[in-house]
């Protein structure tokens, strides 16, 4: 178990390629980045869990307002501490990669937005979401009245069955109509002349 390639193993690598939307180079790069997050004495990268704090030091996640949610959602840890294994990390990357399908993206997006993990986006979730998007500072925060208005508008639009919450299928419906949700992480014109 010395170099990167031998540690990942050919079979495992091809399996990962099969199961994710990442290419070989990307997986190797991810592996490198991930093993950098580990401390020196943790040699068996595949089995290690990296605590959330250390994952959040990645520049890609540093300024993302949903960084904690992302970790929680993708973590397979028992104790819901947001720690990630390498495979969870790959899950994260594939969910955010350009070529991931709409279904995967909307599913994870929904999980990320669902702050209390109850399977629907209710008013509380939406409020938290708005707060995440507008930042923590006071000058950018919306007032209570604006918040109420905004959330009622949102529910009015998307809550098809009028139960006061947005569920996954409603969410997917809304999202699939959006011109912007080729992202997160989409590029706009591909290099194919």
């Amino acid at each position, binding site marked *: 178990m010395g170099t990167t390639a031998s540690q990942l193993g050919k079979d495992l690598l091809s399996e990962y390629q099969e199961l994710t939307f990442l290419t070989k180079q990307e997986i190797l790069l991810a592996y490198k980045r991930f093993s950098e997050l580990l401390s020196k004495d943790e040699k068996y990268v595949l089995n290690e869990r990296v605590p959330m704090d250390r994952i959040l030091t990645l520049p890609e996640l540093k*300024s993302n307002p949903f960084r904690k949610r992302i970790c929680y959602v993708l973590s397979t840890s028992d104790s819901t501490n947001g720690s990630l294994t390498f495979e969870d990390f790959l899950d994260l990357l594939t969910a955010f990669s350009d070529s991931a399908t709409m279904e995967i993206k909307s599913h994870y997006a*929904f999980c990320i*937005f669902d702050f209390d993990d109850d399977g629907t986006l209710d008013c509380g979730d939406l409020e938290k979401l708005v707060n995440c998007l507008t930042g923590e500072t006071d000058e950018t925060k919306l007032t209570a009245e604006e918040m109420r208005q*905004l959330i009622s508008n949102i529910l009015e639009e998307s809550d098809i069955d009028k139960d006061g919450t947005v569920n996954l299928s409603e969410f997917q419906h*809304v999202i699939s*109509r959006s011109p912007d949700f080729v*992202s997160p992480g989409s590029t706009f014109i591909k290099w194919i002349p």
Partner: protein
Amino acid sequence: MPQDSLITSENDIDLVLEFEGDDSSYQKEHRRQRHREKRVDGDIVRRKRGNERRKGASRAEEGESQTRPERIDRGRRKRTRSHQDTKGSEGDEEVQPKIQSGRAAKTRKHTKNEKTRKKEEEEKAEKGEGKERHGKRKKTSASKKEREEVGGKHTMKEKAQEVKRKKHKRVVETSPEPSEEDDIDEEVDEEEEVRPESLSSEELEKLKEAVDERKKLIQALRGKPWPIKKKCVILRESQEFVEKYEGALGKGKGRKLYAYKVLMSKKWMKFQRDFENFKTACIPWEMKIKEIESHFGSSVASYFIFLRWMYGINMILFCLTFGLVMVPEALMGRPYGTIPRKTVPRAEATSAMDFAVLWDFGGYAQYSVLFYGYYNNQRAVGWLKFRMPLSYFLVGVGTVAYSYMVVIRTMARNANESGVGDDNSFNFNWRMFTSWDYLIGNPETADNKFASITTSFKEAILEEQESQKDDNIHLTRFLRVLANFLVLCCLAGSGYLIYFVVRRSQKFALDGLENHTWWERNEVNMVMSLLGMFCPMLFDVISALENYHPRVALQWQLGRIFALFLGNLYTFIIALMDEINLKREEENIIKFNITVWEASLFNGTVSVNSTAPPVTIEPADVPRGPCWETMVGQEFVRLIISDTMTTYITLLIGDFLRAVLVRFLNYCWCWDLEAGFPSYSEFDVSGNVLGLIFNQGMIWMGAFYAPCLPALNVLRLHVSMYLQCWAVMCCNVPQERVFKASGSNNFYMAMLLVILFLSTLPAIYTIVTIPPSFDCGPFSGKQRMFDVIQETLESDFPAWFGKVFSYASNPGLVLPFMLLMVLAIYYLQSTSKSYKEANMELKKKLQTQNEENKKKNKLAALKAQMDLEEARKGSSRTAQQQKNSPSLQDQETDEEEDHRNSQRLHRSKNGRNTPHSVREQGGQFPTSGAPVARPNRHGNQGTPGYPPSFPQQSEPRMHRLPSLQRH
């Protein structure tokens, strides 16, 4: 969420049922534990079995339960199979409780929660996984609903023997919550595995189907939102399964072929993957762009991706012109200095190597493969007999055709990707869910993004609140008209200026360039570049008058700049056309002169010595025509060069120098330069994209007359890439208003298409209408440039081909063909329209149905609640009166109903499964046969004292009381 929970309860029972049916196909290690639990269940079950039988018939009328007999049936089938398969005493033992449980599955509603728990335990044990992803177990109501629908649909449709296929479908279709089904699925497959050789053909068919399903599953696996570990396990199992049985499937002759096919497909897959990897490895500048993406968000990065895309296109154009035109001519054509068109004239020879001349693409540069005039009209060159003029012509046409193809294809792909976002009905939701740019990795950019999102929210709220209110509409209108007027003035002014300058430069050119200063020589290009630089700023100032929403303002701004550039370009072209006409007049004069000169030459030589060999004149001395094609090519090359220079210089001065000044003067200045007035510059995405588009337009326009243009452009783009990447990272700050890129995506592509069309228009016009120069270029001596095609047809192809071609190009054939195409376009358009309408219709239907369902469920829940209260009252009142109930069975049925009602009710309140409270509630009801009302759906069960249905909640008591009195 009463609706969901109601449905859920049904659904879960279905699952339990299935599980009952299938778990006979065991995991041996865990059988014991399950078995024990089952016995406990069985006890409960046995008690109630009697009721169940009686109820069976009436149940069938219920909507959801229609499918149940089938399921039970299936369960039995499974059991019998498992019975055969399991050797030993265990099997018999097991089957007994299972039959019970299968038969009495409906009563499992009570024990459902137990079941769920059990299931979970089993899963953990079976998978050895233990770690279910956080939040996974909490099922989303949506997925439940969906599953319910899917499940229902399939059970209606499918025959019991197609169990497996159905389940597979389920797995595929209900991916969000697939865990249970999947486990079942595997078990079923394992059960099938027994002995492939001994199976009958029907079973073999089934097995084949299973293998195919597995394969499909493997392929679809990456698109599932499951943790990778689970995917891994499934993948391995499926692959094992497929490998194990794939070979066994084909028998005799077929087997070898089949195995070979499998092997090849595996190899092919691997090759494809490697190729994909290779392809991504070949994409240049990926890391650079990713870095910019994370600093500035996707909109700035989109410019660089666009740049890279352009680079790709130009690379291909360059390969075409370089490989098929320039290299053959340079290698196989006549070398420099052999014929007049390939030689610098004597008069220019002295200055031909001067840098100033070369910089202007005169001198040696003019008489080289870089320009049209150098090419010889020799039909075939070199030992390859390369058809040079034909190749030149076809490459010119191919360039244009290829560009059209690429642009349109990209547009179509973009439209496909984002084409669904047709209406604005989800304005707020989109703002909410999709506004964050996940590529941002820079705190500063993130702050800007926060601010811009907040403003967009506030704007949206304001818009919603006072969409119709407008303070002073007349003033705004006046200002907008004024602004447009000013912009029009600007455009007209700039157009006139260019025309004026071009005319003046023609005068200078007639006088001879040497007599003028550098400025006068380069006036045209400089004026064009300067206009392109300053007019957009002017427009920006003017647009402040208009008071548009920023997004609208941006589009106006882009439109104006587009108009400016286009106007300038076309003025330039018109001026060029003037010049072409001048040159052609000149050419006629020179032609005449040459004949005179030749005649005089011959006369002179003849008179001196009649026996001497024909005189050899140095090619440099031969008088020659002005060759307007080369002139056009030169103009374009100069334009490109000056454009590039201005871009780079603006970049250096406007961005770099400014950044340096701001950075270092800030130490000794009286106000804060960084935060205050000059500040650092932002990266102007739209301006840069427009610049790129126009540059490309010029390339398309001039490429026919100057084959070197694509090469130049590749060079320029390459340098731009590095220079701009550097400039952006070192001296720009993130934008105040961070737009997301994908919105304006096809807007830019549409502009590119317009430019492509407008730039090929003049090029094609000149090719088709103006006869080529008589003494330069590959088409010299022909009436028109496209005559080269006819010539090739006549001399290189058999006669019949030419005939066919001439028939095919007959207007009588071409016109109907075009008509047909127009009709096809019309047809396709109308079908797409009708599809859109159908889509809308479906959407509406869905909405109304949802609302209806919602209403119905709410009503049902309300009714159930009322009934329950009624029942409570009733029970307390009638408890003492009630001495002899109609029958024991009735009592028990009522009890059953109580359980169900309470359970439903409870769920509808909480939206969660709460087993304990269900029990408690159930426990509250005495078994004394209290008159309990039922919800409407369960009313028609045919119990003696009840009418088939109870439309009102007060009715039960009314009907019940008489029956009581009777006793």
